[in-house]
């Protein structure tokens, strides 16, 4: 601040000194100069105090705003993480039940294969095999047919001529059925084919299981879980 701003012009002060005694006048001028300076200093400090309050208020507001934002986003994130974990657990629990169901269906299928395997040594197996040959023969439309059975079942008695007659009757085509040589790996059942090998119907148990697997699964689930 310049001198001109702190006090009135020197000439004016000196002029006033003429009115009273110089010492008194000097004191008066000094008091005025100091008084003005004090006022100015007071005003500066008052303004600084106001600025201090403003700064504190502004920083507090900034802090509160940022804190609120932090809390809101942090809480949302934590809630979302919790929801995600619980959802994952629900999914896992659901998968456990699905796996348990699948295990049961597979167990039923395995037992079925075991039963089918046992069936191949039963006295009824010849009839079952005959039925599978007939079904295959009809499916092929009769004609010159060959059948292949698993090596272990080759001693099973099948009434081939009766089956051929039934196929012939069903299809209207003259039918002959011969036992072909060949190795067949299967639990049981039969492969029926045209003698020229042009068409094959795989009526082995394994192939039939594969073909009706979807149906088997549905039926098994129905029996087990409904």
């Amino acid at each position, binding site marked *: 601040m310049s001198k001109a701003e702190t006090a009135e012009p020197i000439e004016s002060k000196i*002029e006033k000194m003429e009115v009273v005694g110089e010492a008194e006048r000097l004191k008066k*001028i000094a008091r005025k100069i100091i008084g003005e300076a004090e006022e100015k200093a007071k005003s500066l400090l008052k303004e600084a105090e106001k600025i201090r309050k403003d*700064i504190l208020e502004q920083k507090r507001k900034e*802090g509160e705003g*940022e804190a609120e934002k932090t809390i809101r986003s942090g809480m949302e994130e934590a809630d979302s993480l919790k929801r995600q974990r619980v959802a994952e657990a629900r999914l896992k629990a659901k998968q*456990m039940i699905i796996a*348990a169901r699948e295990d049961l269906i597979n167990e039923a299928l395995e*037992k079925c294969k075991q039963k089918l395997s046992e069936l191949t040594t039963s006295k009824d197996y010849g009839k079952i095999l005959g039925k599978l040959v007939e079904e295959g023969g009809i499916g092929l439309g009769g004609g010159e047919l060959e059948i292949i059975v698993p090596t272990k079942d080759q001693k099973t008695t099948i009434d081939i001529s009766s089956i051929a007659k039934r196929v012939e009757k069903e299809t209207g085509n003259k039918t002959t059925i011969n036992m072909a040589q060949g190795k067949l790996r299967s639990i049981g059942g039969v492969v029926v084919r045209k003698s020229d090998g042009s068409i094959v119907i795989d009526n082995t148990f394994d192939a039939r299981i594969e073909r009706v697997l979807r149906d088997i699964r549905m039926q098994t689930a129905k029996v087990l879980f409904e």
Partner: protein
Amino acid sequence: MRKVVATPNALEAIRETENEAEGMIKDAKRKAESVKKKALEEGEAVKKKLIDDAHRKVSEYRKKKEEESKKESSDILNKGKKESSELKEETSSRLSSAVDIITKIVIGD
């Protein structure tokens, strides 16, 4: 116009007083600057504390939610295990019926 007369001593005294006044104002300005600087520091500290408190709150909340989710997930998984186990027990008696049905389907009965 009046003629103004002042002794050199008087002029000197006035200049000294003016210097003193100027010093007072400079001092007040320094104090004011110091007040502002401190206010900025204090304000930053207040702001930092509020933000730190918020982070602490969030951390506590997150911890709480983690514990809740662990417990809920564990309950859900245990329930799932129990249901799976019960399912196996309940259906074991129906397994042979299912095997019969599958066998019939396969042999085309």
